[in-house]
């Protein structure tokens, strides 16, 4: 069986003001695989992720051209299609940032936030989904007795897993991760790496990283950012 | 963009328009109500003439002179004081003193002007009367002291902000070159904060010009060009407060709208100048 292409990028050019960060980038990401993007920092790796979920539109001065398709519900959708709301796209293509960014609310409310955004009011269902997401992020056992505590009281590694759980709560098809372990110690990073390997089964992962060993351990596909473009390594 | 987002945007935009219409409509109201006066006298006569309504002269020169004199003198007093206080807060004194001083200055911005005026009436006016044998004791000098005290705290905070915006590398470079704190303050901090200082000065001038109660309660309110600090004088603001009770149809009444316009234009110019200066600082620091 041929692998299915989940994300297709063609001719993506990205600028901040007058500075071009990416030029004419093309890439393919396969469904159910973990793709890694490596390269020196400050060369547009994070920018590339923001182009996939259109988050760049919220960054003043950012400008993108080119086309990105994501395969959702069995058909390819053009990301920049005006009839495709950015909010829906961002629920299906979720993102985890480099530094853990829990919102100023309780652990429970953090994970429930995407459901609140979607307008889900059924409390029982929300509680189920939150528990499911926390379990999938290997966090449930650590926090099940303190769901009402401020999320910012968790440790760094726990916060990052909370952010992953939050991203998973809306059942996304794709999960984008921007150097998810770089602000953590080795042990916490190891937990997250294990987590990523299990998540691969449910969704497509695109991970930005600059730890080459980590990439070798985890990735099915590796791209390198160099000279304003992406080159495939393996 | 969702429908909800468009709706919210529309509501907020309408509110913004309403708020932005306020400064314009204030000016338009002043113009309309000052018209009886403007149609019977030329503007230059009004701005340079003397005030003698019984003889049919409605010039506001005495009030303009008094306003300017009072505002610039109080600025001249409070500028060095504010500079000194901001310097202390910036680091010329140990934090043990600087922090409480900053707190105090912040709290002083909350002193009601009417209280300054009240204290002036019962403390300063009798003192001035006894010391200088100056009539009632209500004169420019009596207004000058509390007015300068009133604008000092805001000016100090403006200056502190300007000092705090001086880039750290410059300070470190000066310290590395062996400059002591005072030398750093005088040679490095003040020059590089000069635009912020000027903006603070201009805004404080607007504030001094716009104060009503201190001048009304303490300056004596005689509508003549003052010839000294112990003379009674009437500012533009006090003139408005005094003449508001006049007959609505009279030209005297229309003159307060002319005063209002002059104040409006001057303070708007001050705000615009300050904005220009701050915009220039922002560009430089980028």
């Amino acid at each position, binding site marked *: 069986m041929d692998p299915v292409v989940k994300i297709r990028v063609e001719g993506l050019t990205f600028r901040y003001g007058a500075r071009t960060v990416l030029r004419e980038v093309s890439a393919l990401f396969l469904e159910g695989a973990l793709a890694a993007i490596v390269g020196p920092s400050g060369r547009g790796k994070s920018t590339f992720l923001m182009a996939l979920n259109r988050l760049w539109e919220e960054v003043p001065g950012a400008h993108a051209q080119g086309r990105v398709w994501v395969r959702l519900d069995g058909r390819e959708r053009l990301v920049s299609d005006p009839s495709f709301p950015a909010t829906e796209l961002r629920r299906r293509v979720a993102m985890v940032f480099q530094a853990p*960014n829990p919102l100023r609310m309780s652990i429970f409310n953090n994970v429930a936030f995407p459901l609140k955004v979607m307008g889900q009011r059924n409390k029982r269902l929300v509680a189920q989904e939150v528990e499911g997401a926390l379990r999938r992020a290997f966090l449930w056992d650590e926090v099940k007795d303190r769901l009402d505590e401020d999320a910012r009281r968790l440790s760094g590694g726990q916060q990052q897993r909370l952010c992953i759980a939050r991203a998973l709560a*809306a059942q996304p098809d794709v999960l984008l991760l921007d150097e998810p372990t770089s602000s953590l110690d080795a042990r916490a990073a190891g937990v997250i790496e294990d987590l990523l390997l299990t998540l691969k089964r449910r969704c497509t992962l695109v991970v930005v990283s600059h730890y080459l060993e980590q990439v070798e351990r985890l990735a099915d596909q590796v791209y390198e950012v160099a000279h304003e473009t992406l080159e495939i390594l393996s | 963009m969702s429908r909800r987002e468009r709706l919210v945007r529309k509501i907020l935009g309408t509110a913004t328009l309403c708020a932005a219409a306020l400064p314009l409509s204030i000016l338009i109201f002043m113009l309309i109500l000052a018209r009886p006066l403007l149609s019977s006298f030329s503007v230059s006569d009004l701005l340079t003439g003397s005030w003698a309504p019984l003889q049919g002269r409605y010039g506001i020169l005495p009030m303009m002179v008094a306003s300017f004199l009072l505002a610039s003198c109080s600025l001249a007093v409070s500028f060095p004081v504010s500079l000194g206080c901001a310097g202390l807060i910036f680091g010329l004194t140990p934090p043990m003193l600087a922090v409480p001083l900053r707190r105090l200055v912040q709290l002083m911005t909350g002193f009601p002007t009417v209280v300054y005026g009240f204290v002036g009436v019962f403390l300063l006016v009798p003192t001035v009367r006894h010391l200088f044998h100056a009539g009632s004791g209500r004169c420019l000098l009596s207004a000058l002291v509390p007015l300068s005290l009133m604008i000092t705290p805001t000016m100090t905070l403006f200056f502190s902000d300007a000092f705090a915006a001086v880039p750290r590398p410059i300070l470190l470079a000066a310290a590395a070159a062996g400059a002591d704190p005072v030398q750093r303050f005088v040679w490095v901090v003040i020059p590089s904060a000069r635009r912020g200082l000027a903006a603070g000065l201009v805004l404080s001038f607007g504030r001094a010009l716009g104060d009503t109660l201190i001048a009304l309660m303490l300056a004596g309110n005689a509508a003549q060009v003052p010839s000294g600090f112990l003379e009674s004088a009437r500012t533009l603001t006090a003139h408005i407060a005094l003449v508001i009770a006049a007959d609505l149809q009279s030209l005297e009444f229309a003159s307060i709208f002319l005063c209002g316009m002059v104040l409006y234009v001057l303070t708007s110019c001050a705000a615009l100048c300050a904005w220009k200066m701050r915009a220039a600082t922002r560009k430089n620091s980028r």
Partner: protein
Amino acid sequence: MKRIWPWAVRCGCYAAGLWIVSGAAGVVGFVAWRGLPHLNAQLLFGDVSARDALFGGVPVFDGLWPAVLGTVALVTGAVALAAPLGLATGIYLAEFSRGRLKEVLTVFFDVLAGIPSVVVGLFGFSVSLLLHKLVSPRLGPCLLVAAFSLMILVLPYVIRATQSALEEVPQEVRLTALSLGADRVQNLVWVLLPHSLQGIASGLLLAVGRCAEDTAVILLTGVVVTAGVPRSVLDPFEALPFYIYYISTQYGSTEELERGFAAALILLGVSVSLFALAYAVRRAVGSWALYRA
């Protein structure tokens, strides 16, 4: 010789500090010295007992009670008008406007902030003239007009506080909810506004303080010496700062003068505490107030 001028500069700074401290001490000390002995229930209610004045509806003639209530009504009205308009405008400026338009609007509100309060009062007075002419000859300067004028006076505070609090929200926080599929309105209501609550609250407190202390505006828009407890927004009213001003121009007896000092002390205390609270809120209110978004 070389060492003398830094020493002189330092001395000058200390002299400036001493001057400002003694100025503050002079004002507070003088008002407290003369006003403190007269702070009692009689000051507020005169010869009427507190219970009768509060619950019995007995009118108070020689106490500060009507002036205090007038000021409270005035502040409530002005802030109730200014808060929604100022919040909406601040949010629009920070979140929905860009480039040239934003710059022009910001300058507009800078200008509005600089207009002297007596000119704002004059505007309020002319609005009441207009109402008198167009709507009903019974209308004139009144509580409503004064509250409207004070609203104009404090609107820039609320706008600026809201705008800068929203603009200070860090980029990471701003993007978090958006990356989870929230639209801009959801992001605003659930993340950005809770995040900027402190800044907005301090702006509102400053606005309350300004309304309570300003005298020039109400001087032109319907304040009077005796009006009793405010009953209608279309009537003239009494207010604390005006009472202080009035006493300073004409007091009949030492008793009245003492009451004036006590009123000045009250106003000073209220105003300074509001400002202190505003600064404290901006610096240090922890997450307790913002815990549930």
